[in-house]
């Protein structure tokens, strides 16, 4: 049995997101081998009923989004598809920046986002994690659940993701310098 099939089997058995690191340990393979096998699995699943969702350190399997409406009808549990304007803004920041601190989000929206962030965490649409770059603060990341709700297998399937990501980086840098300028604090 090849590595790709083993990954497929493990993900199926687990039924929820698995960290790449854990997979590497179980299967006793290098990160390079793992990533190669995942890419191949993803490609082989392309036209099938099952899709592979990737998100930084985690992967999981889910149903092909094209069959969404049929499954929704079969599902007993009610889905909450409502998002307020505040939630949409906050999610768009977290998605297109691939994670943001509360300070980043507050700064962009010009309002305190802590309640929106709590509500989004409760719904499992965002995940709070310690920032790897600065262990004293948290970053909010898109969850697998969020990608699944949007029917995308990875962030780069977001419309305009590539363009936006490049321009966001540049703008953020500019703005940071502006805000650092003497007396340029409030605006």
């Amino acid at each position: 049995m090849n590595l790709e099939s083993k990954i497929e089997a493990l993900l199926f058995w687990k039924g929820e997101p698995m960290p790449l690191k854990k997979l590497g340990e179980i299967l006793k393979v290098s990160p390079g081998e793992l990533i190669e096998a995942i890419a191949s699995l993803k490609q082989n699943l392309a036209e099938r009923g099952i899709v592979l969702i990737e998100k930084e350190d985690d992967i999981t399997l889910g149903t092909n989004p094209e069959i969404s409406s049929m499954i929704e009808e079969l599902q007993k549990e009610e889905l909450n598809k409502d998002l307020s304007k505040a939630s949409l803004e906050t999610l768009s920041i977290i998605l297109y920046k691939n994670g943001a601190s509360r300070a980043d989000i507050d700064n962009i929206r010009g309002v305190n986002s802590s309640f929106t962030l709590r509500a989004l965490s409760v719904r499992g649409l965002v995940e709070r994690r310690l920032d790897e770059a600065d262990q004293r603060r948290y970053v909010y990341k898109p969850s697998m659940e969020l990608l699944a709700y949007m029917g995308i297998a990875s962030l780069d399937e977001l419309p305009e993701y590539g363009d936006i990501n490049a321009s966001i980086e540049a703008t953020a840098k500019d703005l940071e310098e502006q805000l650092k300028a003497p007396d340029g604090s409030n605006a």
Partner: protein
Amino acid sequence: METETAHNHYNVKTAAFQGPFALLLSLVEGRKLFINDVSLAEVTEDYIKHVNALGERDPAEVSSFIVVAATLILIKSKSLLPNLDLTDGEESDIVALEERLRQYQLYTRLAGNVKALFGKNMIFAPEGRKNDVLVFLPDEAITKESMMTFARDALGRIPKKVFLSEVEVKKVISIDEMIDKLTERITNSLNKINFKEFSGRAVSREEKVVVIVSFLAMLELTRQGIIHVTQENNFEDIIMEKPSGDESWDHIPGL
């Protein structure tokens, strides 16, 4: 008396705006304008009227609207009084406001993408499997006492008012403070114009806001040649004249 347009803009429900950028962006986009100093100057009066209508909301919340209002008034003053010298700090406040507003505009546009996709064609994880339960497997950590402690801790962590609306502010300033400061700032740079009559009458916050808005409107009308402003000597009252046979005097907002 207000013009029809001004009246309509005034009626936009301010309560619907979560923060200053949402309000400001809606005013700019409502006029189909791009974000720049010209468009910001154009919507300044409407913005201030909305902020004034916020009334007795949470002071911290109102304060974040006021911080933006202060920068807008600088932009407006500069557009009306090209000779007004702005400090470096004021210049960078203006640039930062434009950029933050553009950034906010970008994410609200992207929020449209999120809205378009969310809940439409979803990916489903496997439904909970019934035959998952194989055996009963407890854990030594489950005791009557530990369960009580965990329940108490969970309750203790909940913020008192979880969804109370609150706005981020770096420093809280009141609308009165802002208006006093700006009135001083602008009139000082216009040593040809005495503003005493205006500001002397204003006592309440509402009156002061009216003063600022009226003052800006007056300058606007001056620039457009609708009224004629003269002043005999420094520190004397501004004399506002309407060109004969014209009723535009009646149309200055707030007077």
